[in-house]
C-alpha cells in the first residue's frame, strides 16, 4: 500500500520530530494510565468488597455519604451512625391512624433490635428477614500505617461464631489460630443497657481477628498483643483469616462491643447488614422497612454499590481531567508535528496530485503517519503508565498510610489508553487532511514556506 509505504518512510526521514511526537504521546498515555489506575483500583476494591459480602440489604444512616466502606473508609467516610436505641423519630401522635402506625413501627423496632441482638430472628412484623447485624467501622494508625477495623458480632457459644461471621463474609478461611467465641449476653451485645469503656471489657472481649495480608504488612503475631496506646488497650490476635476477596485480608475484625467501647459509641453502628430468606421479595421487604423506619436508608447490594460507584466515577473524572492536560498537550504536539510535516511537503503533495494521486491517498498517508506515531507512543505510554502506577501507588500508600495496594491496571484501562492514543493520532491528522483536501495543485506546486 503506497500510503503506508510513504508514511513509514517519512517517519524515518524526520526521526527527531517523530521521536518528539512519540515522547509527547508516551507522557500523555503514561499519565492517563498511572492516574486512572488508582480509580480503577478503588473501583475494583469496592466491587470486590461489596459483592463478596453476603448482604441483601444495607441499612444506612439517613443522609450519609455512602462512601464505600472499608477501603475508602481509610480515607475517612462521613462517619454518620445509626442510633439503635432511637430508630424512630419522635413525632407527635396527632391522629389515630398515625398512632397505630407508630405503634406498629415500635413493635417492629423492638423486633429489629432483638434480631440485631440474636443470630437467628423470626419476625412476624417484617417477614422475610433472616438475620441482621450491626456493623461499626473505624480506623487506627498502627506502626505508621492506617488500619481499618471492623466491629461485628462474633456470635455466641450457642451459635458457632465463625459460621455467623462467615455467613456475612463468605469465603473466610482460618489460616492460623482459633475463631474466638463470644461470651457476652445477646441482650447487651450492642451496648444499649450498659455504657462500657475499654476497662470494662473482659479478657475474652479484648481479642481481634486479622486478615493475613495485614498480619504480614504489620508483622503482627499471635504471641504479641496489639497495643492501642491512646485507648489504653491491648488486644490479642486470636486468629488469622483469609478471604476469597483479597482486599478483606487487609482488615482487622473486632467483636462489636469491643469496637463500641473503643469508639465510645454505645448503641450506635455505622451500618446494619440484613440477610433475607427470599431474595425475590427483597424489594417488598425494603419498602416495608422504609415505611417503618423513615429516618433510615435501605439499599440493596447493587444500589449500595451504585451510589458508591457514582462517587468513584467522580474521582475517575477528576483524575481523567488531570490526565486530560497531558492528553491535550500530546494532541497539540501531534497536530503540530503533522501540520509542520504537511507544510513542508505541500510541493511534494502537489507533485503527487499532479502525477495522479488522489486526495484520499495523500490523506490516508497523513493519517497512517499520525497513527503510527501515536500508536508507538501509546504502546510505550502504557508501559510507562504501568511503571508510573507502581510509583504512584507507593506514593498514595505513603501519603494515606494505607497498608493495601491502591492502583490496579485493568484490561479496560489498557484498552482506553490504546483508544486514546489512536484518538490523538486521528485528531493530529485532521487539520493536515483538511488542508490536503482544500489544496489546489497549482498553488501547492508553487508553495514556498
Amino acid at each position, binding site marked *: 500500500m*503506497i500510503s503506508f*509505504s*510513504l508514511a513509514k*518512510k*517519512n517517519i*524515518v*526521514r524526520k526521526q527527531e520530530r517523530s521521536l518528539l511526537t512519540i515522547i509527547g504521546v508516551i507522557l500523555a498515555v503514561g499519565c492517563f494510565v498511572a492516574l486512572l489506575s488508582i480509580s480503577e483500583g478503588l473501583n475494583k476494591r469496592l466491587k470486590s468488597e461489596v459483592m463478596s459480602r453476603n448482604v441483601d440489604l444495607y441499612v444506612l444512616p439517613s443522609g450519609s455519604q455512602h462512601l464505600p466502606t472499608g477501603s475508602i473508609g481509610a480515607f475517612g467516610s462521613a462517619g454518620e451512625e445509626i442510633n439503635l436505641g432511637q430508630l424512630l423519630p419522635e413525632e407527635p401522635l396527632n391522629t389515630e391512624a398515625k398512632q397505630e402506625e407508630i405503634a406498629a413501627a415500635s413493635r417492629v423496632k423492638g423486633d429489629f433490635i432483638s434480631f440485631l441482638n440474636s443470630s437467628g430472628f423470626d419476625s412476624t412484623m417484617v417477614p422475610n428477614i433472616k438475620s441482621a447485624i450491626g456493623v461499626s467501622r473505624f480506623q487506627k494508625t498502627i506502626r505508621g500505617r492506617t488500619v481499618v477495623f471492623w466491629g461485628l458480632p462474633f456470635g455466641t457459644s450457642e451459635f458457632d461464631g465463625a459460621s455467623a461471621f462467615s455467613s456475612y463474609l463468605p469465603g473466610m478461611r482460618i489460616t492460623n489460630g482459633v475463631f474466638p467465641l463470644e461470651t457476652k449476653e445477646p441482650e447487651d451485645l450492642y451496648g444499649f443497657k450498659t455504657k462500657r469503656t475499654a476497662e470494662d471489657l473482659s479478657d475474652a472481649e479484648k481479642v481481634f481477628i486479622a486478615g493475613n495480608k495485614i498480619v504480614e504488612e504489620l508483622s503482627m503475631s499471635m504471641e504479641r498483643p496489639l497495643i492501642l496506646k491512646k485507648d489504653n488497650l491491648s488486644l490479642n490476635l486470636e486468629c488469622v483469616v483469609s478471604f476469597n476477596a483479597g482486599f478483606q485480608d487487609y482488615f482487622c475484625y473486632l467483636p462489636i462491643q469491643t469496637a463500641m467501647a473503643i469508639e465510645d459509641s454505645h448503641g450506635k453502628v455505622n451500618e446494619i447488614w440484613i440477610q433475607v430468606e427470599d431474595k425475590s421479595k427483597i424489594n417488598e421487604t425494603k419498602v416495608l422497612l422504609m415505611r417503618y423506619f423513615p429516618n433510615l436508608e435501605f439499599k440493596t447490594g447493587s444500589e449500595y454499590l451504585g451510589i458508591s460507584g457514582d462517587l468513584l466515577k467522580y474521582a475517575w473524572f477528576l483524575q481523567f481531567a488531570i490526565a486530560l492536560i497531558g492528553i491535550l498537550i500530546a494532541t497539540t504536539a501531534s497536530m503540530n508535528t503533522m501540520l509542520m510535516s504537511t507544510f513542508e511537503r505541500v*510541493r*511534494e503533495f*502537489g*507533485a*503527487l*496530485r*499532479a*502525477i*495522479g*494521486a*488522489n486526495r484520499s*491517498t495523500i490523506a490516508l498517508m497523513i493519517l497512517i503517519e499520525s497513527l503510527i506515531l501515536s500508536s508507538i507512543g501509546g504502546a510505550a505510554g502504557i508501559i510507562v503508565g504501568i511503571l508510573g502506577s507502581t510509583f504512584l501507588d507507593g506514593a498514595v500508600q505513603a501519603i494515606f498510610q494505607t497498608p493495601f495496594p491502591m492502583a490496579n491496571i485493568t484490561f479496560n484501562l489498557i484498552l482506553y489508553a490504546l483508544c486514546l492514543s489512536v484518538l490523538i493520532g486521528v485528531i493530529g491528522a485532521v487539520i493536515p487532511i483538511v488542508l490536503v483536501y482544500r489544496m489546489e*495543485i*497549482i498553488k501547492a*506546486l508553487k508553495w514556498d514556506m
Partner: protein
Amino acid sequence: MKVSMQGIYKYWKSEFGQVRVLENVYMDLANGDFVAIMGPSGTGKSTFLHLLGCIDRPSFGKIFFENTDICALSENVREELRLEHIGFVFQNYYLIPTLSVLENVMLPMQLANSYVGQQEDRAIKMLELVGMETKFNENTFKLSGGQRQRVATARALINNPGLLLADEPTGNLDTRSTREIMDMLRIVNKEQSITTVLVTHDPKVAAYADRVYYLDEGRISPANL
C-alpha cells in the same frame, strides 16, 4: 494522443481585478506531435500546460482528448486521466525525497494499482531508457540536476502516457544536461509516439520540437525561429 483545444479562455482573479491569461486559444495536436510553447515569463505558458494536464480548468472553451471533453469530466476522472494518460516533467523535478530512484519511478504504477510483479521490471526498463540504470537504489538528493530530471522523465513515462507535458524541463540544467534531456525527450517522442508539449523560453530547446508556438499576452501564434 490526439488533443484539441477550442476557444480557450483563462482568467485569474487578482487584487486588481480579473486578469486575462489565455485568450481564444485554438490548437490541434496529432498523435506523436512534438510541440514547443515559447514566450516571456508570465504570459501563461505554464497555465496552458496545466489546462492540458487536467490540473486546471479553462474559464471558457473546450479541450478534447481524442473525442472526450476533459473539461466536463469530474475531478476523480481527471485524476485517473492524469495518472494513466498524462506524464508530467517539471522544472523542479518534484521527486519524492524519501523514496529511492527506483521507488520514485515506480510510484505512478503503485498509485494506479498496477500488477505488483510488473512494477519493478517496468521501472528498471524506464531507468535504462533514460540512462540511469546504475542508480536504482540511490537517494534522489544525491543526484545531479540532470540525473534528477532523467528520473522525473522515467517517472512521467512509466504508465505509458499518451501525452507528455514538460514545463521548462531544462530550466535548472547546464548546457550539457539540457542537450541530453532534450535528446532523450526527442527519442521517447519518436520511438513511443507520445504527443509531447514542451514549455520553454530557450529557443535552442524549442528547436527540438516539430512545431513551435509563441504565447504573448494570452494569445498563441506559430513562431518563426
